[in-house]
């Protein structure tokens, strides 16, 4: 079996900077910051009171008639994913059942989907009225839960929160019948989903795949979890400057929500239908942290180094070939330092020269969506020959030798490297190549 080349023919993003990929690009290149005081719930009891929230949108507008009733089964994560998927598919020129059932130009059985999703936390205010019926002596009473609690929950409750549901709804809307997977590796999930979707195409199990990530971290329990783990900033008074990746004054991250999706396609298939090819996916690598402190990246950055080395080998290029690095850059000092060390060890001296563009200072950390959003940003940078300015990096942290791009710069980008990692230890690297029109 010869392995097939995989290209990107569509993308979409819904982020705190706006509900389309154009909003994302405009925001990022203007160094706009979407981080603000949390609005979804009153954060006054939380150590971090900031979030990156997506502007209002109406989900019904993004659903075809035949799936509108299902809106009530869509938690926030699913809604975000549905919107990003719609933009990605429209931009690719593919016409699915959900776009126009009379003009379908896709073979559903050869269409795969792979989405990075977070652990979807239930809406607590939906659960509370049922829990409130189960109190004895001011405590939760499991016996009453069995009788009065369970029966007052909506029957399809569980289906709103299974992490495979974003992929399930999108598959129904766009009639995607090929391999369907949901990767749950937290902040590394989107890259791993994209990697796997590309391998599904290259091994000929599908011709097209929708791949990306979605997450809605602006939920009390998710925020609590990040705060308790000591991953969030407590600098709440100036949201615009709160998240400072690789900066000497970094105090922690801010969490948010979003989704980004790519249409991946077999090169031959894309060319046969005269699709616009935005970039080629030429390399991927991943590894694992094995340090006992699995809340953070290990201090020597070994696992991120290994992921990058694997991706370079997969792409058949060297460090000097890379023109842009999209790092994970989360704003947690010890993680940023470990990532910088990992990148520096993998790329050697080249790491000090290649423009590096962290985006989370503008977007917040959008969990399982973050890696996909960065890939969309990298693709747009390639298309526009422009690298945007990084925000809030005034003094590079000691030990970080990366060439952080603090001013916008025009640059022909042939290869871009995107990195991500997560608590729990997965690390990833993806390498995109500007499409050169050559067929091997």
């Amino acid at each position: 079996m010869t392995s097939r080349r995989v290209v990107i023919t569509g993308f979409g993003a819904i982020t705190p900077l706006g509900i389309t990929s154009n909003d994302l690009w405009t925001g990022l290149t203007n160094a706009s910051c979407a981080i603000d005081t949390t609005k979804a719930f009153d954060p006054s009891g939380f150590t971090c009171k900031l979030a990156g929230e997506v502007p209002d949108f109406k989900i019904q507008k993004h659903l075809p008639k035949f799936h509108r009733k299902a809106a009530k089964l869509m938690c926030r994560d699913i809604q975000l994913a549905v919107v990003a998927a719609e933009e990605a598919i429209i931009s690719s020129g593919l016409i699915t059942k959900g776009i126009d059932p009379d003009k379908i130009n896709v073979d559903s059985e050869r269409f795969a989907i792979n989405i990075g999703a977070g652990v979807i936390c239930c809406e607590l205010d939906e659960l509370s009225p049922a829990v409130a019926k189960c109190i004895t002596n001011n405590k939760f009473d499991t016996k009453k839960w069995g009788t009065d609690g369970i029966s007052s929950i909506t029957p399809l409750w569980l289906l709103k929160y299974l992490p495979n549901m974003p992929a399930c709804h999108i598959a129904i809307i766009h009639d995607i019948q090929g391999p369907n997977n949901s990767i749950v590796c937290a902040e590394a999930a989107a890259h791993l989903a994209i990697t796997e979707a590309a391998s599904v195409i290259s091994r000929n199990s599908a011709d097209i795949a929708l791949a990306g990530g979605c997450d809605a971290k602006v939920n009390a329990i998710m925020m609590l979890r990040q705060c308790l783990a000591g991953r969030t900033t407590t600098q709440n008074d100036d949201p615009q400057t709160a998240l400072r990746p690789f900066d000497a004054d970094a105090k922690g991250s801010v969490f948010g929500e979003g989704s980004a999706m790519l249409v991946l396609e077999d090169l031959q298939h894309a060319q046969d239908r005269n699709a616009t090819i935005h970039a080629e996916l030429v390399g991927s690598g991943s590894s694992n942290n094995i340090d006992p402190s699995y809340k953070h990246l290990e201090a020597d950055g070994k696992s991120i180094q290994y992921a990058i080395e694997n991706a370079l080998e997969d792409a058949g290029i060297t460090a000097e070939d890379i023109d842009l690095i999209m790092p994970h850059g989360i704003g947690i000092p010890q993680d940023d330092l470990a990532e910088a060390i990992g990148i520096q060890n993998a790329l050697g001296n080249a790491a000090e020269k290649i423009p590096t563009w962290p985006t989370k200072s503008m977007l917040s950390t959008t969990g399982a969506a973050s890696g996909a959003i960065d890939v969309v940003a990298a693709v747009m940078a390639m298309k526009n020959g422009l690298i945007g300015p990084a925000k809030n990096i005034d003094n590079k942290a000691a030990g970080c030798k990366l060439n952080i791009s603090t001013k916008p710069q025009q640059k022909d980008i042939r290869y871009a490297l995107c990195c991500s990692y997560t608590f729990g230890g997965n690390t990833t690297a993806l390498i995109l190549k500007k499409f050169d029109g050559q067929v091997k």
Partner: protein
Amino acid sequence: MNQRVVITGSGIVCPIGHDVETMWKNLLAGNSGMDKTTTFDASTCPATFSAEVKDFDLSKYTKNIDLHKTGNRHTAFCIGAAAQACTQAGIQIESDRPTDGIDRRKMGIYLGAGEGSVDNDHFFDVLVQAWNDNERQMDWKKWGDYAFSNFSEMKELEQEPVMPASHIAMLTGARGPSRSCLTACAASTQAIGEAYMMVRSGKANIMIAGGAHSMIHPLGVMGFCRLTALSTRNDSPKTASRPFTASRDGFVLGEGAAVVILESLDSAKKRNAKILAELIGFGSSGDAFRVTDMHEDARGAVQAIEAALKDANVSYKDIDYISTHGTSTAENDSIETKAIKKVFKEEAKNTPASSPKSVFGHLIGATGCAELITCIMAIRDNTLPPTMNLNDPDPELDLDFVPNKPRKTDVNIAMKESFGFGGQNNVLILKRFDE
């Protein structure tokens, strides 16, 4: 060049045994793992019973108990299953300088891993404290104040579905490509399928693959009860899981972990590892039909089975045994039967198909791998595990379900089917190893 992929280790922690041999013995004997639920007081729930893992002792599997003790229930099971599988395969665990000759950068992990249970000691109480019933809304300030002083950092973090794999990485030192997926009841089958592809293509030499899940907790039981997916045969837990019968009324919620070691044939030979079976096919599809139901014509299931047969380059006539998804729900068992009839045509009634869930329950994300291990054993012993409690066959479901007792027969090629809520269908094909 595609690598041949073999299985060199297996491990399990499930309701009918904390190791493969015990599980297999109990499965063949039909010793049910179901009983009254004890992990929480479920006595008033619509389903009061489940299939629990009982008396599990993590310290038997790890020296670093302090490192792993914060792990959720299913993470502990997973460490047990992975430790067994690695030991069988000759992979050294918890070793700073392993001498097993395995390149850790070419050894990865792929789990179909579930989320951990919420912190039941506090999760509900904090809602009670913060809910303002008069105004029908949450007082978030109160919620935050209570939560910050009561919830524990590690209990929260360990709920993330990435955590079982995280612990297995620390246990084994695996530095190769690693992922966790969660496609409901099909998760570990899908994990093994994609891990198989990673070894086949040379991305990894060894993949530690499988699944871990436990949903026997107030929210999990509630969720499945509301979907009316669980059997409510509370007066007879041991006969409640009765796949393919006319009286089936739902599945029995189980828990556990199962892990297999997938390895390239070259690597296994180089290490003189004992080969348990060869993985030869994987097929995967999506129903794209409804959130709540399987496609009525079994479209997705048929597509996945056919894809797996094609990938394995075998015909349905070559399949000696089908390990069904067989959940004991009205819908699954009838659609699955329809799928088998469509693909297997004239051979459908001659191809034995049984459901281990009749004995150990539905291990949700972990179930596919647990059942794949029963296929490995079926091939080893030329013995099919039975579908227990099959006393009143559904007249529409008229295949050979191996009712009520195990059967001696030649088993060279076995097929494992898994179908998830939301329409993910995954099928693996396993073969007796032959040079």
